[in-house]
């Protein structure tokens, strides 16, 4: 029953995406949307040409590396700060406000500042880290707080030390929510990296987008945009698999 409903869910999804791509192709072929909206087949065959493939792959590699580093740095910072807040509650409240403030700063305003202060190379990673940080911090804090009262009581009566409580109860209890936060943050990491590249990084999908736009290379612009979307989707899908496994294991 469950198997068949998931299968039909997948069939629906594949059909939906297929229809969308087909509509795109037909609209592009008909030319009603003008030259700026080429058919999908034109974009794909352009991307398959050796020259453009090598440009796109280099950009993909750069952006994926920045997004991955950003995801790593941002989530590590988020988890460590959530842990500190857990171990020392007065600090936790202040950290919550700090995280909300960081999240309230528009990244578009931060970009140029970072280019000047941290440099062109580091900016994509930094922006990706900042976008990831808030989501992971909130997810980890909520996860630590999701420990049930009776579970905490039990460990108290069993005479658990602070570190045993953390290791046997709080960390495992927080894992599913933490990965949920990571899953939502990974797309933000890709967007953050591309945004950072936009401000003048030496490479990446963001740079290709800017240069293709300025040079009116419509097919390149579209392939770079699609590549960015694809990267996000794949990363999201991978973390989704991890999340489903953790859900079944830890809840």
């Amino acid at each position: 029953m469950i198997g068949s409903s998931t299968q039909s869910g997948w069939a629906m999804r594949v059909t939906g995406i297929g229809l969308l791509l087909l509509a795109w192709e037909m609209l592009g072929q008909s030319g009603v949307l003008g030259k700026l909206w080429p058919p999908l087949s034109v974009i794909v065959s352009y991307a398959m040409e050796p020259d453009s493939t090598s440009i796109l792959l280099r950009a993909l590699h750069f952006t994926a590396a920045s997004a991955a580093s950003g995801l790593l740095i941002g989530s590590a910072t988020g988890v460590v700060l959530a842990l500190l807040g857990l171990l020392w509650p007065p600090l936790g409240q202040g950290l919550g406000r700090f995280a909300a403030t960081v999240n309230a700063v528009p990244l578009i305003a931060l970009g140029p500042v970072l280019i000047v202060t941290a440099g062109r190379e580091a900016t994509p990673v930094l922006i990706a880290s900042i976008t990831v940080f808030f989501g992971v911090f909130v997810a980890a804090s909520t996860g630590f707080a999701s420990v049930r009262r009776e579970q905490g009581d039990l460990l108290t009566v069993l005479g658990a030390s602070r570190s045993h409580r953390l290791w046997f109860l709080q960390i495992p209890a927080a894992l599913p929510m933490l990965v949920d936060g990571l899953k939502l943050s990974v797309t933000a990491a890709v967007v953050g990296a591309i945004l950072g590249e936009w401000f003048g990084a030496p490479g990446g999908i963001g740079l290709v987008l800017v240069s293709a736009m300025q040079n009116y290379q419509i097919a390149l612009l579209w392939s770079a945009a699609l590549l960015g979307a694809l990267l996000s989707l794949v990363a999201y899908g991978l973390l989704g698999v991890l999340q489903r496994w953790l859900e079944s294991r830890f809840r």
Partner: protein
Amino acid sequence: MASAYAGPIVDTFTMTPKSATTVAITEVSKTFTVDGRTVTALDRVSVGVHDSEFLAIIGPSGCGKSTLVRMVAGLEEPSSGKVSIAGSSPQVLAARHHIGFAMQEHALLPWLSVRSNVALPFRVAGRAVDWHAVDALIALVGLTEFGAARPRQLSGGMRQRTSIARALVLEPSLLLLDEPFGALDAVTRRHLNLELQNLWSAHRLTTLLVTHSVEEAVFLADRVLVLSSHPGQVKLLRDVPFGRPRGAQTRRLPEFRLLVDELTECLDAEADRVQDVIHP
């Protein structure tokens, strides 16, 4: 038949004897502040639990019986008065990993198997897991086939069995049971009463049980403490004269029924009095 309750207590002590564990609850009061008003949950309650004695606490809901056992567990502090276990504070006993604890919410960790849940107290105590002891207890509560199962795959009764095995695995010197069968259906509950009775008769550890079932209290305990409510005070302390081990036949004894009726009436009178206090 009569000797089943009046005969001498059968000594089947199998565990390593520990130093005597007595609980002294002395003049314990507990007050809460609700909307600026001070509510007295417990009022100068004094009771002692002897070494290797099973004491059951019953009382109308809201009489503070759970609060009392939570104070013995060191989870709450009395507003005045003192709880001491073998001469120390509850926290000292907890830090030595000497308390076994089971409550209405099983508090099993959902990411651990039944075996690992039962083994948790060893890990928390920083000791190597004695898997032999873990498996022996799991067998004792009839869950051998479910050792690898996770809590959500079990029925409510199986989860409570697991949590009782967990409470016993470190051979605690004090066992605290806060309505462990409160959420179970009547049949499962009687079944687990019988199992707990057998387990207890074999181990004889100092035990405090909070329950709202008079029959459960009489079946399991050596003495039953009845608390009144608003405020919670000691109303009656009654010896239970039946020998051990007790079985289904114990429940059928006329004396058993009489004692259950007596205590039930005591609770009913208490409930009526509370009605009058609240709606004079």
